[in-house]
């Protein structure tokens, strides 16, 4: 088999030149071109001078991603992968290497939702109502059944090496859609299991790394040790100035800019232009971001729809609503995280709690996006780093399972009301329509109009991709 991981590029552009281009908006260029060209093929030249945007015509529906990351590995068998056979075989012994091997039927009933009739359990009654917008990927598998590796794998496509994150690649490929906001925002990311690596830029330009936004929790910036303590009032590092009023700070910036312009006149230093602009952007962000995360101007009905104000759903509801607001403002990639899915025991109580916290907000997000006409060009992804075993652990729990699990996607040009792929009759292993992380990444990029095999960055002597030497687009799930 011949790999094309190292296909040499005709023109190598130095890292610094690349950064200059990014500085003046390689990404912005890409985005403008995409709009201008109405997602026609080959509009954008990659860093190596070859087209990065190759996917043609109708595949390029998605303009942004909202990734609902369920950290810990939610059980597919109790949510989105209906296994009647598992019900029948409840309590039977299974010869497995770990655990006691007794199959455990899901304690929850499954019902069909929507016109498409997708089977979804009673843990997700609201999401089930959105079934016709959802494409279940029931044949997922990943590399390693350990949280840290699988999380980093899902976010970067590699657990062995430090690589750029999915969101960084998307931002690198498409640029940001709002000059007042970062193009890749991750809301309340977890600190462990790779931490900042999960939204890091690695060797891509630093400007495409995810910006961490902390809301609604007394933040401990896990991955950012040594940096300022986040507070609900300061969702982005150093966003707030405690000392000077806005007008006072404006005067200060005006003074700085006057000195900068004086220098520009004297030195003809091209970098000054960008620096002057960076202060203006920072100043606008200070105003814009608090505005954006301030939900008080949302209608009461909207807040209720997201479950904001209800204890169980308030936290995640806020994050989902924020995700919509960032999406509206042109942020390219938004990640929302919810931990607590590692149900080795107490499956019954923990899954009720977990799903109870996210079901309503997720359904609200899908509905809200749809009402605003944004679901068509927003790719919503739900999933965790792996699934759980069909056999019980500790009587009332399930173990990690990398061999088969379910994630789903909605909107953004994906086929709704579809179940693609499947696990074996008791749900342990993906056997049909199997998608690994690379295939999922490749397909998601395809939906964004990006060709995973040409979206590359030259580093350490070769062209790197999100999908490394692997990945294939799964056309069956593209609308």
């Amino acid at each position, binding site marked *: 088999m011949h790999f094309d991981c190292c296909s040499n590029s005709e023109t190598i552009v130095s890292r610094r030149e690349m950064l200059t281009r990014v500085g003046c908006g390689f990404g912005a260029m890409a985005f403008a071109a995409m709009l201008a060209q109405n997602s026609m093929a080959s509009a954008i030249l990659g860093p190596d001078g070859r087209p990065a945007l190759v996917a043609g015509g109708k595949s390029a529906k998605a303009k942004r991603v909202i990734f609902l990351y369920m950290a810990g590995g939610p059980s597919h068998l109790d949510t989105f992968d209906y296994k009647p056979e598992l019900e029948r075989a409840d309590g039977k012994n299974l010869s497995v290497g770990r655990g006691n091997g007794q199959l455990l039927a899901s304690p929850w009933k499954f019902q069909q939702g929507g016109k498409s009739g997708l089977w979804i359990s009673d843990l997700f009654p609201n999401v089930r109502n959105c079934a016709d917008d959802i494409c279940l990927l029931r044949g997922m598998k990943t590399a390693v059944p350990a949280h840290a590796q699988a999380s980093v794998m899902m976010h970067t496509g590699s657990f062995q090496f430090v690589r750029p994150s999915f969101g960084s690649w998307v931002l690198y490929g498409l640029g940001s859609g709002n000059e007042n906001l970062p193009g890749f925002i991750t809301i309340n990311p977890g600190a462990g299991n790779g931490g900042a690596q999960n939204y890091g830029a690695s060797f891509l330009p630093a400007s495409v790394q995810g910006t961490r936004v902390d809301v609604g929790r007394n933040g401990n910036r896990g991955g950012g040790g040594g*940096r300022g303590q986040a507070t609900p009032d300061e969702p982005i590092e150093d966003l707030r100035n405690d000392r000077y*009023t806005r007008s006072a700070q404006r005067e200060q910036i005006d003074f700085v800019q006057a000195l900068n312009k004086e220098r520009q006149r004297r030195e003809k230093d*091209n970098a000054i232009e960008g620096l002057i602009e960076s*202060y203006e952007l920072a100043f606008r962000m200070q105003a814009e971001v*608090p505005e954006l995360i301030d939900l008080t101007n949302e209608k009461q009905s909207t807040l209720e729809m997201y479950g904001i104000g209800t204890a169980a759903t308030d936290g995640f509801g806020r994050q989902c609503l924020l995700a919509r607001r960032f999406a509206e403002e042109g942020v390219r990639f938004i990640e929302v995280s919810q931990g607590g899915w590692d149900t080795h025991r107490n499956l019954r109580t923990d899954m009720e709690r977990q799903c109870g916290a996210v079901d309503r907000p997720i359904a609200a997000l899908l509905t809200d996006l749809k009402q605003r006409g944004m679901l068509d060009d927003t790719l919503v992804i739900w999933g965790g780093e792996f699934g759980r075993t069909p056999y019980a652990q500790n009587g009332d729990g399930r173990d990690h399972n990398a061999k088969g699990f379910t994630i789903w996607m909605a909107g953004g040009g994906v086929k709704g009301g579809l179940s693609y792929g499947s696990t074996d009759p008791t749900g342990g292993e993906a056997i049909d329509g199997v998608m690994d992380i690379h295939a999922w990444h490749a397909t998601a990029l395809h939906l964004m109009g990006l060709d995973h095999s040409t979206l590359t960055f030259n580093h350490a002597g070769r062209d790197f991709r999100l999908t490394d030497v692997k990945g294939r687009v799964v056309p069956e799930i593209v609308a």
Partner: protein
Amino acid sequence: MNIAHFHHLPPRLTLPITLVAAALAASAAPPPASLDRPSAARRDDPMEEMQNDAMDSDAMGSSGMSAGEVRQKDPSELTQAEISFFESKIRPVLSGACFKCHSEGSRVRGGLRVDTPDAMLRGGESGPAIVPGDPDSSILIRALRHSDEDYEMPPSGKLSDAVIADFERWVEMGCPDPRARENFGTTSTTPDAYRASASGIDIEKGKEFWAYQLPTRTEPPAVQHADWPRGDVDAFLLHGMEQHGIAPVKDAEKSTLLRRVSYDLTGLPPSPREVDAFMRDKSKDAYEKLVDRLLASPAFGERWGRHWLDVARYAESSGKETNILYPHAWRYRDWVIDAFNQNTPYDRFIVEQLAGDLLPARDDREFAQLWIATGYLALGTKSHNARGRAQFQADLVDEQIDAISQGLLATTVACARCHDHKFDPIPQKDYYALAGIFASTETRYGTVAQQQNNHPAQLIRLPEGVGLPLGPTQPESVQRLLAAAYDRIAATVENAPTAAELREARLAESRGEKPKIDLQAAQRARNAQGQLEVYNHLATRFDTDGKPTSGNLLAMGAAESGRVIAVPLLERGEIDKAGAIVPRGVPQVLCVGATPELSSASSGRLELAQWIASDTHPLTARVWVNRVWLHLFGKGLVRTPDNFGSSGQAPTHPELLDALAVDFMEDGWNTKALIKKLMLSRAYQLDSTPDANQAKVDPDADWYGHMLHRRLEAEAIRDSMLAAAGTLDLERPVGSMVNMVEGSARLDQFMQLLIPDSRTRSLYLPVVRDAVPQSLQVFDFAESSFVTGDRDETTVPTQALYLLNDENVLRIADAFAKRLQRDEGTTDERVQRGFVLALGRKPTGAEASASRAFIKHFEQVATRSSAAQPQETPAQARGNRRANQPFGQRIRERMGRSDSTIPNDPELIALSAFCQSLFATAEFRTLD
């Protein structure tokens, strides 16, 4: 040239006796990981559940040999009889009765695997499974005999006496085992000389590429303006300019030059006194004296040592998924700084880092320093929570190959891990040849086994009484935090159920009954045991007053593993696709000058090091010369400093690069002399503003017709702020903050506690991967997971936010303002002094009047109780409510934990805003 002083010494050397003893003690002692392992409850618990958050397959043992033990033969040494004994009597039983629980991919109960010889020797939580030659000491035999209640194996029932006798005999024979060593793959059976693959790479043809030919000296070309060049460097450069129709711009102003040289050599701005002295010195050699003085200052090593630390991917934690701290990495950092200050010849500098442990030493202190140098090999990223030992080991070696080949040779050898290199003539075989050298090396990176850390290793124990610093003293705040954490963990552990209780509870739960104890709490207690280990280890390094003890005399580094092995080529780099064994060696295409002969008695590291650091290596000198050039001219003669291969860029001035490389070697690999030569060139002293022609045809100074504007590195920006404020502490701190802790927990709190008050130079701030201090991160600090030859220079709004709002910046500005205020004088005098301190020059008339106006106006703003904007949103209003408190009050609140109390003084506030504004200017962060 004088490099022969160590090249021709034999690799085996007589070490000082005390050190031999120390070294033996260090390697024979159990690794920190296994100290006081409270594992009775863990290891004999058959119901013990694989704790999924923590892959707790264990822990490597030591390589020391005990009495009665015989050496296990390598596969290549086995007789046919020994092989067939293993194949007929031993292997079937192992795979039939043991693999289910004790092989890679199984649960690896008790941390024990028996599917490779290494895994058996290493053993599990209870120690080595086999002791070759000594059945009675072999846990495996005891378990088979059912002579020990704790280990009755297999659990399904005792094997026949005949089988047990076979195993006893096998151990007596010395455990002959033809299975491949696990470092790389497990399926290869008999070693087999590698047969040239059908790779299609033509090595001889590959050697024709410019980078693989030895550099040669050519005479500098004739130039039209023969009066311009001050030496060969200028002649080569001017020739290039003339060919492209460019004339060099004017020479830089003296003050510009002073600032340029100061930052380039020390990373610090010139002090006002230095400015005065230099401006007054009208002697002809004033500039050269300046260069000499700064080359000799201790700050030189800090500046250039940090450049090297970028290349050495220096960090104080493992990075990747779990980010375990490396508390002893700082000794390598200090070693690098000292090496630059002592101007250690670069060839020697390389050999010490790759094989310092194998070099002769005059005394214990030098021996210790040489061993610390090998920390270079141990610092890389690692996945401490990886499950399989073989994969972990392969990744470790891969990281070393990548760091060395890119860092020292600008060659991307790691590309050949999975297949032949796509662009460069490096077959996959060459990768595994190099891998054998490192597979025969033991990398000592330390760390303590705990949740999320399955791969602790030893450290190097350094000798006492030779003047090595013990480490930092824990401040009281850190001691308090640690004590509180310890109490909490100890309390959790105290509540841990006994093994019997745990077993019973799990059985009950699996029967669907309610267990008597809280299983989740039990799990927490179990994890806490691991954490307790970490604290116990910390207690061996610090006494109860927080002072470092001799137990803290530890370093990271490399040592001979004691077993020289060649590794098999892995198909597609996959650990279970082992092919033929590849003899150890180096990439063939680089052997244009010499091919190293690797001793069969040692890993080959020393030979590798000497080969790399020889004047017959085509790349080493060129790569280093290019790195030095890059730091002085803003970009390399080869623009891709870590990749001289065909996918990198060719040099813009190949003859100049070669001439510099050849001269450098002939000068005895003298880095300071090289730097001085480049700084004395006229090209280095050019103005940074291009003329109209250059602005059009060569704005990026590809032909060096003008100097580039360069952005200061993160460290220089923070150091300059502190220097302007007069609070920079130029003393090197002892150790690192990271040394005060261990493991991975609560790092945030420690850093929060310690970093804001730090006044040391920025290179001494903790470098924890993925958690670099904001002051460094925001200005493109090196990505310490990789070799970074050339840092990014981005301009992004987070930098503006940092300079405008960060509490530490505000505090430094306050200190700067107080410094100005202490000098009696008019506002104008203060403005003048502020410019000189921050920017190294006096303000222009326009700047001075703008500054005075700003200060005056800001004083009024600060005096008013409210400066809120008339139309504000609710969110802004919330912010402004805070902002509308009197300034002084808020500042006092903010400054509460520092030593000073700021009066409610509008003048000081305005001065502080002025000082901060100077930090925020383009000029402050730019080198002209």
